[in-house]
């Protein structure tokens, strides 16, 4: 009877959320500050109630309680425990429940950490969090109710979608994505709170939300890379990005959030872009909801779109409400959102940040239009079309190249205005990196224009960002006589946002190298082989040893044993497989990769003869693929460093003139 109990918990949460939503503006307007803790406690209560429902769902899944509709839909007694637990986010209703739980968690922590802050910013921020929570609460008792009673109770269920129980990354990618996606609600809530309370001029909301944005951005970056990795490891075509609508959905808010991470600095330092930043934050939030709409409404068919139902209309209505509300709030604050600073010179870091925002926004609109176009075409003209990958590649590659270029120039230029001597000393040395990478790419055989340009700019930007570390380290060592490790630690601790940012740049550059390398030098061959046959691709030789079958607990497996040969000796064994799940009549191809730092050998079993006489193997050789995953790790590390609580007395003795230690006081206020 855990189902009705959990459903009741979700039902009770609704009036509590509504109470908070009504009480927050009343308490502020009438000056009854003693009611504000009550507003906050509605968020905490909601967290407890949604947590109860989430735990109940996990218990129902693990105990195979098929009287709960969601368990009857995705559960199966044969599924291993790990995949049973993670099927919490394996289908629509469970994923909305998990979403609501993450949102409740974020909301409670945000408000708890800032509960003693005077002023009206936090009560109104709580109001925004409550409103978004209410939307998901309504979904959970309405169109996405996971706790419908099922009668008669089935003896067993079908188990999760085969594609979603085929790889361990399914336990990693979705939660990271939710943490990133849902986390973008926090800066949005701060922006709404600032506009409702009229506290947008003070820029406090930017300072308070900065670490939350960075946290969500780090999760989202990790989620996108984990999704690419999953796609690479599971889907069997040897690629990791196809401009699929669901991939685009995760990428769109990442682009605007990245733009915001840069433009917020202009507001903090120079009082510029106030209006623009509010728009970016609202836009990022709307894009996360739009992404959820695209992937969860069934409007596009993919592994992420679970069912076709009415839930899409709820999302559309919510997006419309958010946009209209944001418009009204921005209009009401138009005087306060005016820019107070101005540009001093075109040769400055401000210019680079503005261009960065320009290209990231254009990038976002390109991907958005390419993603939505098929929906619009079908709605207006009634034709079914898709937008081919060449559209995305041709449109975005110039922007990617520009962004790589800016990534090298930005860190080198000072704020306000650069002298000619400064520009020479900062901009010229990285040309060495550009030259080396360009020659390296040409020697390795790259001939595609954008590939070579990308390698060149990656080289430039890598040297430029590394050089910032080097300059700081050298200065510390000379001034304080510190060892390398101490100097590096103190350098980062002295200005973690800046050096975290450079590290994230380097991670992105490493990933860019992986992408440019693997797409420029991909070689692939497919062959039907008899046991003993060999196949050579790009200098790598493989030999088919045999085809076999095996029964596993939840599936049957057909696999091929393939030996990797070097100078006639066996140096490794790869076993690409096909997994057959009882609920699907189609096998899930399960490629296997032999990964080294230089490149991957990727084998897929395409088809086999039921007697084991032959098998068709596709072999793909791609250099540098693992650099993408490694780069993703470095990006996350950069985000983590940027989030470190500032030391109370920042060691500014060696800071460059543009390093203003304003963070200390602000972050200390939000620290627990």
């Amino acid at each position, binding site marked *: 009877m855990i189902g009705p109990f959990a459903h009741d918990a979700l039902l009770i949460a609704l009036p509590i959320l509504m109470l908070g939503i009504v009480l927050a503006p009343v308490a502020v307007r009438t000056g009854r500050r003693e009611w504000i803790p009550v507003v906050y406690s509605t968020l905490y209560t909601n967290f407890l109630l949604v947590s109860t429902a989430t735990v109940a769902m996990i218990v129902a899944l693990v105990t195979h309680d098929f009287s709960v509709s969601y368990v009857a*839909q995705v559960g199966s007694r044969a599924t291993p425990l790990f995949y049973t637990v993670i099927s919490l986010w394996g289908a629509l209703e469970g994923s909305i429940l998990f979403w609501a739980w993450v949102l409740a968690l974020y909301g409670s922590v945000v408000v708890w950490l800032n509960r003693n802050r005077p002023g009206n910013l936090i009560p109104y921020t709580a109001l925004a969090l409550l409103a978004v929570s209410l939307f998901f609460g309504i979904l959970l008792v309405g169109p996405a109710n996971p706790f419908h009673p099922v009668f008669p109770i089935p003896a067993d269920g*079908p188990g999760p*979608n085969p594609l979603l129980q085929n790889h361990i990354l399914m336990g990693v990618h979705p939660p990271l994505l939710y943490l990133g996606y849902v986390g973008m609600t926090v800066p949005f809530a701060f922006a709404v709170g600032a506009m409702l309370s009229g506290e947008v001029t003070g820029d406090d909301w930017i300072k308070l939300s900065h670490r939350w944005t960075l946290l969500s951005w780090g999760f989202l970056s990790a989620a996108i890379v984990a999704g690419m990795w999953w796609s690479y490891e599971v889907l069997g075509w040897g690629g990791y990005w196809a401009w699929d609508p669901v991939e685009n959905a995760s990428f769109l808010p990442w682009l605007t959030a990245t733009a915001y991470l840069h433009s917020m600095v202009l507001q903090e330092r120079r009082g510029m872009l106030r209006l623009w930043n509010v728009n970016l934050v609202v836009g990022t939030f709307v894009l996360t909801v739009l992404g959820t709409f695209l992937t969860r409404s069934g409007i596009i*068919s993919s*592994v992420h*779109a*679970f*069912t076709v139902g009415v839930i899409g209309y709820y999302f559309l209505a919510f997006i419309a409400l958010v946009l209209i509300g944001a418009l009204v709030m921005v209009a009401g604050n138009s005087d306060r959102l005016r820019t107070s600073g101005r540009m001093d010179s075109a040769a400055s870091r401000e210019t680079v940040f503005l261009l960065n925002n320009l290209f990231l926004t*254009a990038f976002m*609109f*390109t991907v958005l*239009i*390419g993603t939505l*176009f098929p929906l619009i*075409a079908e709605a207006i003209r009634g*034709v*079914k*079309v*898709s*937008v*081919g990958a*060449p*559209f995305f590649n*041709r*449109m975005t590659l110039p922007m990617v190249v520009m962004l790589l270029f800016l990534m090298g120039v930005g860190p080198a230029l000072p704020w306000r205005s650069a002298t000619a001597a400064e520009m020479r000393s900062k901009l010229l040395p990285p040309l060495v990196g550009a030259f080396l990478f360009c020659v390296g790419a040409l020697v390795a055989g790259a001939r595609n224009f954008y590939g070579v340009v990308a390698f060149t700019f990656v080289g430039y930007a890598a040297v430029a960002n590394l050089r910032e570390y080097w300059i700081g380290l050298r200065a510390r060592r000379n001034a304080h006589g510190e060892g390398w490790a101490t100097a590096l630690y103190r350098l980062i601790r002295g200005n973690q946002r800046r050096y975290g940012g450079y590290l994230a740049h380097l991670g992105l550059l490493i990933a860019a190298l992986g992408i440019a390398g693997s797409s420029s030098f991909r070689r692939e061959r*497919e*062959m*039907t082989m008899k046991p003993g046959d060999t196949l050579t691709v790009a200098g790598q030789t493989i030999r088919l040893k*045999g*085809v*076999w*079958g*095996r*029964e596993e607990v939840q599936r*049957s497996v*057909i696999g091929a044993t393939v030996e990797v040969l070097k100078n006639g000796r066996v140096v490794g064994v790869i076993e690409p497989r*096909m997994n*057959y*799940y*009882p*609920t*699907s*009549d*189609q*096998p899930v191809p399960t490629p296997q990769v032999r990964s080294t730092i230089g490149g991957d050998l990727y084998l897929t079993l*395409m*088809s*086999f003869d*039921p*007697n*084991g006489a*032959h098998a*068709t193997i*596709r072999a793909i050789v791609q250099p540098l693929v693992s650099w993408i995953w490694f780069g993703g790790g470095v990006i996350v590390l950069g985000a983590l460093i940027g989030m470190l609580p500032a030391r109370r007395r920042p060691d500014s003795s060696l800071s460059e003139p543009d390093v203003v230690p304003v963070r200390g006081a602000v972050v200390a206020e939000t620290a627990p």
Partner: protein
Amino acid sequence: MTRRQSAIVAVVVALGAFAWLLYGNLDKNIVFFLTPQELLAKGADGYEVPVRLGGQVKPGSVQWDAKTLDLRFVITDGTAEIATRSKGAPPQMFHDGMGVVVEGRYERSGLFQATNLLVKHSNEYRPPKAGEKPQDMYKTLIKGTGS
């Protein structure tokens, strides 16, 4: 012109250029999803443009050469049919009468050159019908080589 006016002109020019690029590239890279009947109805416009062709594999039309990896079959929607050629092994469950989507170009010779073959993969769960269980279908291999 004042500073403000020139800024506005710059923004309008940039937006116009961006929109023009978007339009031009979209126009060139839209892939229509068509049935054989719809593709044939396009006449000369249907040749040599990227198309996604959807339909059923006509029973008895599949020819596959495992040596050259040359796969030929006919896609039908009941009224019209189009001969299709694809390179590479067919998906393991490829069989007569199943729904497929092929991406490629319709050549003037009347042959559809597919670069990509997608089997219609339903994500809706349904219990397998009798004789459809993969365990039943691949028992030979599982018994034959053991584990």
